[in-house]
Protein backbone atom coordinates (compact mmCIF):
# COMPACT_ATOMS: atom_id res chain seq x y z
CA UNK A 1 0.00 0.00 0.00
CA UNK A 2 2.02 2.95 -1.27
CA UNK A 3 1.04 5.86 0.95
CA UNK A 4 1.09 8.92 -1.22
CA UNK A 5 -1.28 11.04 0.78
CA UNK A 6 -0.97 10.80 4.56
CA UNK A 7 -4.38 11.32 6.11
CA UNK A 8 -3.97 14.61 7.90
CA UNK A 9 -5.15 14.30 11.47
CA UNK A 10 -6.57 17.43 13.00
CA UNK A 11 -4.58 19.37 15.57
CA UNK A 12 -7.11 18.68 18.27
CA UNK A 13 -6.78 14.98 17.70
CA UNK A 14 -3.00 15.22 17.87
CA UNK A 15 -3.24 17.08 21.13
CA UNK A 16 -5.10 14.24 22.84
CA UNK A 17 -3.17 12.30 25.40
CA UNK A 18 -3.17 8.91 23.70
CA UNK A 19 -1.57 10.45 20.62
CA UNK A 20 1.15 12.15 22.63
CA UNK A 21 2.60 8.99 24.12
CA UNK A 22 4.21 7.78 20.96
CA UNK A 23 5.72 11.07 19.93
CA UNK A 24 9.37 11.95 20.42
CA UNK A 25 10.26 14.84 22.59
CA UNK A 26 11.09 16.85 19.46
CA UNK A 27 7.64 16.73 17.95
CA UNK A 28 6.18 17.46 21.35
CA UNK A 29 8.31 20.55 21.65
CA UNK A 30 7.24 21.72 18.22
CA UNK A 31 3.58 21.34 19.10
CA UNK A 32 4.11 23.21 22.34
CA UNK A 33 5.91 26.02 20.57
CA UNK A 34 3.07 26.42 18.10
CA UNK A 35 0.60 26.68 20.94
CA UNK A 36 2.78 29.20 22.72
CA UNK A 37 3.00 31.39 19.62
CA UNK A 38 -0.76 31.65 19.53
CA UNK A 39 -0.93 32.61 23.18
CA UNK A 40 2.07 34.94 23.47
CA UNK A 41 0.64 37.76 21.41
CA UNK A 42 -2.27 38.19 23.78
CA UNK A 43 -0.07 38.34 26.87
CA UNK A 44 0.45 41.65 28.57
CA UNK A 45 3.99 42.77 29.29
CA UNK A 46 5.63 45.60 31.20
CA UNK A 47 7.31 48.27 29.12
CA UNK A 48 10.25 48.80 31.45
CA UNK A 49 13.96 49.14 30.74
CA UNK A 50 15.78 45.87 31.28
CA UNK A 51 17.58 45.53 34.55
CA UNK A 52 20.86 43.76 34.18
CA UNK A 53 21.43 40.89 36.53
CA UNK A 54 24.76 40.67 38.24
CA UNK A 55 26.56 37.99 36.38
CA UNK A 56 27.89 35.34 38.64
CA UNK A 57 29.68 32.27 37.53
CA UNK A 58 28.95 30.11 40.53
CA UNK A 59 25.80 28.03 40.35
CA UNK A 60 24.30 26.53 43.47
CA UNK A 61 22.90 23.02 43.27
CA UNK A 62 21.71 20.98 46.19
CA UNK A 63 21.53 17.69 44.38
CA UNK A 64 24.09 14.91 44.55
CA UNK A 65 23.23 13.73 41.06
CA UNK A 66 25.54 16.29 39.49
CA UNK A 67 28.40 15.54 41.82
CA UNK A 68 28.67 11.80 41.72
CA UNK A 69 27.73 9.39 39.00
CA UNK A 70 25.23 7.26 40.84
CA UNK A 71 23.69 4.10 39.50
CA UNK A 72 19.98 3.61 39.10
CA UNK A 73 18.23 2.94 42.38
CA UNK A 74 16.35 -0.24 41.50
CA UNK A 75 18.42 -3.38 41.21
CA UNK A 76 17.77 -7.04 40.79
CA UNK A 77 20.32 -9.86 40.84
CA UNK A 78 20.32 -13.39 39.46
CA UNK A 79 17.06 -12.98 37.64
CA UNK A 80 14.80 -12.27 40.58
CA UNK A 81 12.89 -9.61 38.67
CA UNK A 82 13.61 -9.67 34.92
CA UNK A 83 11.93 -6.33 34.20
CA UNK A 84 14.10 -4.57 36.72
CA UNK A 85 17.19 -6.16 35.22
CA UNK A 86 16.23 -4.85 31.82
CA UNK A 87 15.69 -1.43 33.33
CA UNK A 88 19.09 -1.59 35.00
CA UNK A 89 20.79 -2.08 31.66
CA UNK A 90 18.82 0.72 30.07
CA UNK A 91 19.29 3.31 32.77
CA UNK A 92 22.91 2.60 33.49
CA UNK A 93 23.71 2.69 29.82
CA UNK A 94 22.03 6.09 29.60
CA UNK A 95 24.28 7.38 32.33
CA UNK A 96 27.37 6.27 30.52
CA UNK A 97 25.95 7.67 27.28
CA UNK A 98 26.31 4.49 25.32
CA UNK A 99 24.19 3.91 22.29
CA UNK A 100 21.37 1.61 23.25
CA UNK A 101 20.18 -0.09 20.15
CA UNK A 102 17.18 -1.78 21.66
CA UNK A 103 15.54 1.59 22.09
CA UNK A 104 13.85 1.57 18.69
CA UNK A 105 10.73 -0.44 19.25
CA UNK A 106 9.38 -1.70 15.99
CA UNK A 107 5.91 -0.38 15.83
CA UNK A 108 5.76 -0.35 12.05
CA UNK A 109 4.71 -3.35 10.11
CA UNK A 110 6.55 -4.01 6.90
CA UNK A 111 4.74 -3.32 3.65
CA UNK A 112 4.57 -6.94 2.57
CA UNK A 113 3.07 -8.09 5.80
CA UNK A 114 0.60 -5.26 5.62
CA UNK A 115 -0.44 -6.23 2.14
CA UNK A 116 -0.84 -9.86 3.12
CA UNK A 117 -2.94 -9.09 6.15
CA UNK A 118 -5.04 -6.60 4.31
CA UNK A 119 -5.76 -9.19 1.67
CA UNK A 120 -7.11 -11.66 4.13
CA UNK A 121 -8.77 -8.98 6.18
CA UNK A 122 -10.86 -7.89 3.25
CA UNK A 123 -11.89 -11.47 2.79
CA UNK A 124 -12.83 -12.25 6.36
CA UNK A 125 -14.64 -9.02 7.08
CA UNK A 126 -16.24 -9.09 3.72
CA UNK A 127 -17.50 -12.58 4.43
CA UNK A 128 -19.17 -11.36 7.56
CA UNK A 129 -21.28 -8.86 5.72
CA UNK A 130 -21.91 -10.91 2.63
CA UNK A 131 -25.30 -12.42 2.11
CA UNK A 132 -25.78 -16.16 2.19
CA UNK A 133 -25.59 -16.48 -1.53
CA UNK A 134 -22.35 -14.53 -1.78
CA UNK A 135 -20.65 -16.45 0.99
CA UNK A 136 -20.18 -19.31 -1.39
CA UNK A 137 -17.94 -17.07 -3.46
CA UNK A 138 -15.35 -16.90 -0.75
CA UNK A 139 -13.07 -19.86 -1.20
CA UNK A 140 -10.37 -20.95 1.14
CA UNK A 141 -6.90 -20.96 -0.30
CA UNK A 142 -4.20 -23.52 0.53
CA UNK A 143 -2.78 -21.26 3.27
CA UNK A 144 -6.16 -20.71 4.79
CA UNK A 145 -6.37 -17.22 3.29
CA UNK A 146 -9.81 -16.31 2.25
CA UNK A 147 -10.12 -14.74 -1.17
CA UNK A 148 -13.21 -13.81 -3.06
CA UNK A 149 -12.96 -15.82 -6.23
CA UNK A 150 -16.03 -15.77 -8.40
CA UNK A 151 -17.47 -12.67 -9.88
CA UNK A 152 -20.88 -11.63 -8.78
CA UNK A 153 -23.72 -12.81 -10.94
CA UNK A 154 -25.34 -9.76 -12.35
CA UNK A 155 -28.75 -9.47 -13.83
CA UNK A 156 -28.53 -9.98 -17.56
CA UNK A 157 -31.05 -8.05 -19.46
CA UNK A 158 -32.73 -10.32 -21.95
CA UNK A 159 -32.13 -9.32 -25.49
CA UNK A 160 -35.14 -9.14 -27.58
Amino acid at each position, binding site marked *: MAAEHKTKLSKNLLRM*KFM*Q*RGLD*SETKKQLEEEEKKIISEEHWYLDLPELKEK*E*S*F*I*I*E*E*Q*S*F*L*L*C*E*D*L*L*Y*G*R*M*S*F*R*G*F*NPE*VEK*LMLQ*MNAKNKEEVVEDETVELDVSDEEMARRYETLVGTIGKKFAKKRDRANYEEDENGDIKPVKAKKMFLKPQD
Partner: protein
Amino acid sequence: MAEAAGVAAEFFASNRARAARAVLDQVVLPGEELLLPEQEDGEGPGGAGERPLRLNAGARSRVRVVCGPGLRRCGDRLLVTKCGRLRHREPGGGGGGVYWVDSQQKRYVPVKGDHVIGIVTAKSGDIFKVDVGGSEPASLSYLAFEGATKRNRPNVQVGDLIYGQFVVANKDMEPEMVCIDSCGRANGMGVIGQDGLLFKVTLGLIRKLLAPDCEILQEVGKLYPLEIVFGMNGRIWVKAKTIQQTLILANILEACEHMTADQRKQIFSRLAES
Protein backbone atom coordinates in the same frame (compact mmCIF):
# COMPACT_ATOMS: atom_id res chain seq x y z
CA MET B 1 50.67 22.50 53.17
CA ALA B 2 51.02 23.20 56.92
CA GLU B 3 49.95 20.64 59.52
CA ALA B 4 46.29 20.45 60.33
CA ALA B 5 46.75 21.96 63.80
CA GLY B 6 48.86 24.76 62.44
CA VAL B 7 46.29 25.51 59.80
CA ALA B 8 43.49 25.51 62.34
CA ALA B 9 45.39 27.94 64.56
CA GLU B 10 46.09 30.16 61.60
CA PHE B 11 42.50 29.97 60.60
CA PHE B 12 41.18 31.06 63.93
CA ALA B 13 43.75 33.79 64.20
CA SER B 14 42.96 35.46 60.89
CA ASN B 15 39.84 34.54 58.99
CA ARG B 16 41.66 34.25 55.72
CA ALA B 17 40.13 32.33 52.90
CA ARG B 18 41.94 29.25 51.65
CA ALA B 19 42.28 28.04 48.12
CA ALA B 20 39.78 25.36 47.29
CA ARG B 21 42.30 23.31 45.40
CA ALA B 22 44.59 23.16 48.36
CA VAL B 23 41.92 21.70 50.61
CA LEU B 24 40.62 18.92 48.37
CA ASP B 25 39.79 15.70 50.23
CA GLN B 26 40.46 17.36 53.56
CA VAL B 27 38.09 18.11 56.34
CA VAL B 28 36.46 21.54 56.14
CA LEU B 29 34.32 23.18 58.79
CA PRO B 30 31.25 25.37 58.42
CA GLY B 31 32.10 29.02 58.10
CA GLU B 32 35.23 28.60 56.05
CA GLU B 33 35.59 30.52 52.85
CA LEU B 34 37.21 28.93 49.85
CA LEU B 35 38.76 30.63 46.89
CA LEU B 36 38.28 29.26 43.43
CA PRO B 37 41.34 28.62 41.25
CA GLU B 38 40.95 31.73 39.11
CA GLN B 39 41.04 33.98 42.10
CA GLU B 40 44.31 32.60 43.40
CA ASP B 41 46.32 34.56 40.86
CA GLY B 42 44.93 37.87 41.96
CA GLU B 43 45.30 37.14 45.67
CA GLY B 44 48.74 35.71 46.08
CA PRO B 45 51.89 36.93 44.45
CA GLY B 46 53.08 34.82 41.58
CA GLY B 47 50.18 32.41 41.45
CA ALA B 48 50.70 29.00 39.94
CA GLY B 49 49.93 30.16 36.39
CA GLU B 50 46.39 28.92 36.16
CA ARG B 51 45.64 31.08 33.21
CA PRO B 52 48.87 31.84 31.42
CA LEU B 53 47.19 33.95 28.77
CA ARG B 54 45.63 37.06 30.21
CA LEU B 55 44.45 39.59 27.68
CA ASN B 56 42.99 41.90 30.27
CA ALA B 57 44.37 41.78 33.79
CA GLY B 58 41.10 42.93 35.32
CA ALA B 59 38.73 40.51 33.66
CA ARG B 60 38.38 36.97 34.89
CA SER B 61 37.53 34.18 32.51
CA ARG B 62 33.98 33.21 33.23
CA VAL B 63 33.99 29.48 33.78
CA ARG B 64 30.84 28.24 35.39
CA VAL B 65 31.57 26.47 38.63
CA VAL B 66 28.87 24.48 40.35
CA CYS B 67 28.80 24.47 44.11
CA GLY B 68 27.05 21.38 45.33
CA PRO B 69 25.64 20.20 48.65
CA GLY B 70 27.36 21.63 51.69
CA LEU B 71 28.57 24.76 49.93
CA ARG B 72 27.07 28.16 49.32
CA ARG B 73 27.93 31.11 47.18
CA CYS B 74 29.27 34.05 49.13
CA GLY B 75 30.17 36.86 46.80
CA ASP B 76 32.80 35.35 44.57
CA ARG B 77 33.83 32.69 47.03
CA LEU B 78 32.44 29.46 48.33
CA LEU B 79 31.19 29.29 51.89
CA VAL B 80 31.19 25.93 53.65
CA THR B 81 27.95 25.09 55.46
CA LYS B 82 28.52 21.45 56.47
CA CYS B 83 31.49 19.70 57.97
CA GLY B 84 33.05 16.97 55.93
CA ARG B 85 35.60 16.36 53.21
CA LEU B 86 35.76 18.70 50.25
CA ARG B 87 35.46 16.91 46.92
CA HIS B 88 35.88 18.08 43.38
CA ARG B 89 35.03 16.66 40.02
CA GLU B 90 36.18 17.83 36.63
CA PRO B 91 33.38 17.99 34.13
CA GLY B 92 33.39 16.27 30.77
CA GLY B 93 32.07 19.14 28.67
CA GLY B 94 32.64 22.87 29.07
CA GLY B 95 32.34 24.75 32.30
CA GLY B 96 34.23 24.51 35.55
CA GLY B 97 34.11 21.63 37.93
CA VAL B 98 31.75 20.68 40.72
CA TYR B 99 32.75 21.19 44.33
CA TRP B 100 30.86 19.60 47.19
CA VAL B 101 31.24 18.49 50.77
CA ASP B 102 31.04 14.79 51.52
CA SER B 103 29.26 14.80 54.85
CA GLN B 104 27.38 12.26 56.89
CA GLN B 105 23.81 12.66 58.02
CA LYS B 106 20.70 10.65 58.71
CA ARG B 107 18.02 13.27 58.25
CA TYR B 108 16.93 13.70 54.64
CA VAL B 109 16.08 17.05 53.10
CA PRO B 110 14.03 16.78 49.87
CA VAL B 111 15.98 17.74 46.78
CA LYS B 112 14.56 18.12 43.31
CA GLY B 113 15.35 15.21 41.04
CA ASP B 114 16.11 12.70 43.77
CA HIS B 115 14.58 9.24 43.57
CA VAL B 116 13.13 8.29 46.93
CA ILE B 117 11.07 5.59 48.56
CA GLY B 118 7.97 6.94 50.24
CA ILE B 119 5.18 5.44 52.31
CA VAL B 120 1.63 6.50 51.48
CA THR B 121 0.06 7.85 54.64
CA ALA B 122 -3.16 9.43 53.43
CA LYS B 123 -5.40 9.65 50.45
CA SER B 124 -7.25 12.93 50.16
CA GLY B 125 -9.24 13.70 47.04
CA ASP B 126 -6.90 13.76 44.09
CA ILE B 127 -3.58 13.47 45.87
CA PHE B 128 -1.75 11.03 48.08
CA LYS B 129 0.31 12.16 51.03
CA VAL B 130 3.60 10.32 51.01
CA ASP B 131 6.01 10.25 53.92
CA VAL B 132 9.57 10.59 52.61
CA GLY B 133 11.39 11.26 55.85
CA GLY B 134 11.53 15.02 55.41
CA SER B 135 9.93 17.74 57.45
CA GLU B 136 6.58 17.40 55.74
CA PRO B 137 4.89 14.70 53.70
CA ALA B 138 5.20 15.06 49.96
CA SER B 139 2.16 15.20 47.76
CA LEU B 140 1.70 12.81 44.86
CA SER B 141 -1.06 13.36 42.38
CA TYR B 142 -2.94 10.31 41.16
CA LEU B 143 -2.35 11.42 37.58
CA ALA B 144 1.40 11.18 38.01
CA PHE B 145 1.53 7.49 37.18
CA GLU B 146 2.08 5.96 33.79
CA GLY B 147 -1.13 5.55 31.88
CA ALA B 148 -3.27 7.14 34.56
CA THR B 149 -6.28 9.17 33.55
CA LYS B 150 -9.25 10.51 35.41
CA ARG B 151 -11.19 7.37 34.71
CA ASN B 152 -8.27 4.99 35.05
CA ARG B 153 -6.95 5.56 38.57
CA PRO B 154 -3.82 3.85 39.83
CA ASN B 155 -4.19 1.12 42.39
CA VAL B 156 -2.51 2.74 45.39
CA GLN B 157 -3.57 2.10 48.98
CA VAL B 158 -2.53 3.66 52.26
CA GLY B 159 0.60 1.94 53.46
CA ASP B 160 2.00 1.16 50.02
CA LEU B 161 5.61 1.83 49.14
CA ILE B 162 6.21 4.23 46.28
CA TYR B 163 9.41 4.82 44.33
CA GLY B 164 9.29 8.24 42.74
CA GLN B 165 11.21 11.45 42.15
CA PHE B 166 10.72 15.01 43.29
CA VAL B 167 9.59 17.72 40.90
CA VAL B 168 9.27 20.46 43.47
CA ALA B 169 11.47 20.47 46.53
CA ASN B 170 12.55 23.68 48.21
CA LYS B 171 12.35 25.18 51.63
CA ASP B 172 9.39 27.38 50.82
CA MET B 173 6.93 24.88 49.39
CA GLU B 174 5.53 21.50 50.15
CA PRO B 175 7.51 18.87 48.25
CA GLU B 176 5.79 17.24 45.31
CA MET B 177 6.74 13.97 43.76
CA VAL B 178 5.75 12.04 40.67
CA CYS B 179 6.16 8.52 39.39
CA ILE B 180 6.77 9.33 35.74
CA ASP B 181 9.61 11.05 33.94
CA SER B 182 9.35 14.03 31.61
CA CYS B 183 8.36 11.81 28.68
CA GLY B 184 5.50 10.25 30.58
CA ARG B 185 7.16 6.86 31.07
CA ALA B 186 7.45 5.10 34.39
CA ASN B 187 11.07 3.88 34.14
CA GLY B 188 10.72 1.63 37.13
CA MET B 189 8.96 4.16 39.34
CA GLY B 190 5.59 3.57 40.92
CA VAL B 191 4.31 1.20 43.55
CA ILE B 192 6.90 -1.25 44.84
CA GLY B 193 5.59 -4.80 44.97
CA GLN B 194 4.47 -7.04 47.75
CA ASP B 195 6.56 -8.46 50.61
CA GLY B 196 10.13 -7.46 51.20
CA LEU B 197 11.59 -5.37 54.00
CA LEU B 198 12.09 -1.61 54.30
CA PHE B 199 14.80 -0.28 56.59
CA LYS B 200 16.66 2.95 57.13
CA VAL B 201 20.35 3.73 56.80
CA THR B 202 22.44 6.87 56.66
CA LEU B 203 22.46 8.96 53.51
CA GLY B 204 26.18 8.56 53.02
CA LEU B 205 25.85 4.79 52.86
CA ILE B 206 23.30 5.00 50.08
CA ARG B 207 25.66 7.11 48.01
CA LYS B 208 28.48 4.74 48.74
CA LEU B 209 26.42 1.75 47.66
CA LEU B 210 25.21 3.44 44.50
CA ALA B 211 28.70 4.41 43.40
CA PRO B 212 29.53 2.87 40.03
CA ASP B 213 32.34 0.68 41.36
CA CYS B 214 30.78 -0.57 44.55
CA GLU B 215 32.18 -3.94 45.57
CA ILE B 216 29.60 -4.58 48.23
CA LEU B 217 26.77 -4.78 45.75
CA GLN B 218 28.71 -7.01 43.41
CA GLU B 219 29.43 -9.44 46.21
CA VAL B 220 25.88 -9.32 47.50
CA GLY B 221 24.55 -10.01 44.04
CA LYS B 222 26.45 -13.27 43.88
CA LEU B 223 24.86 -14.71 47.00
CA TYR B 224 21.33 -15.48 45.90
CA PRO B 225 18.57 -14.00 43.73
CA LEU B 226 17.31 -10.78 45.25
CA GLU B 227 15.89 -7.39 44.50
CA ILE B 228 16.89 -4.09 46.10
CA VAL B 229 15.52 -0.59 45.76
CA PHE B 230 17.58 2.34 47.06
CA GLY B 231 15.92 5.59 48.02
CA MET B 232 18.08 8.68 48.35
CA ASN B 233 16.22 9.47 51.55
CA GLY B 234 18.10 6.74 53.36
CA ARG B 235 15.55 3.97 52.85
CA ILE B 236 16.35 0.61 51.34
CA TRP B 237 13.82 -2.04 50.38
CA VAL B 238 15.04 -5.59 49.91
CA LYS B 239 13.33 -8.78 48.86
CA ALA B 240 14.59 -12.32 48.51
CA LYS B 241 12.95 -15.69 48.18
CA THR B 242 12.74 -16.53 51.88
CA ILE B 243 12.37 -14.36 54.95
CA GLN B 244 15.68 -15.53 56.34
CA GLN B 245 17.57 -14.48 53.22
CA THR B 246 15.87 -11.11 53.30
CA LEU B 247 16.88 -10.56 56.91
CA ILE B 248 20.47 -11.59 56.23
CA LEU B 249 20.62 -9.12 53.38
CA ALA B 250 19.20 -6.31 55.50
CA ASN B 251 21.73 -7.00 58.25
CA ILE B 252 24.63 -7.02 55.82
CA LEU B 253 23.64 -3.72 54.26
CA GLU B 254 23.18 -2.05 57.60
CA ALA B 255 26.43 -3.35 59.00
CA CYS B 256 28.66 -2.79 55.99
CA GLU B 257 28.92 0.87 56.75
CA HIS B 258 31.16 0.26 59.70
CA MET B 259 33.07 -2.78 58.49
CA THR B 260 36.43 -2.80 56.84
CA ALA B 261 36.90 -4.63 53.56
CA ASP B 262 38.49 -7.61 55.29
CA GLN B 263 35.69 -8.10 57.76
CA ARG B 264 33.23 -7.90 54.92
CA LYS B 265 35.03 -10.55 52.93
CA GLN B 266 35.05 -12.83 55.96
CA ILE B 267 31.33 -12.50 56.39
CA PHE B 268 30.64 -13.10 52.74
CA SER B 269 32.78 -16.18 52.64
CA ARG B 270 31.02 -17.53 55.71
CA LEU B 271 27.68 -16.90 54.06
CA ALA B 272 28.72 -18.48 50.83
CA GLU B 273 29.61 -21.66 52.68
CA SER B 274 26.33 -22.03 54.53
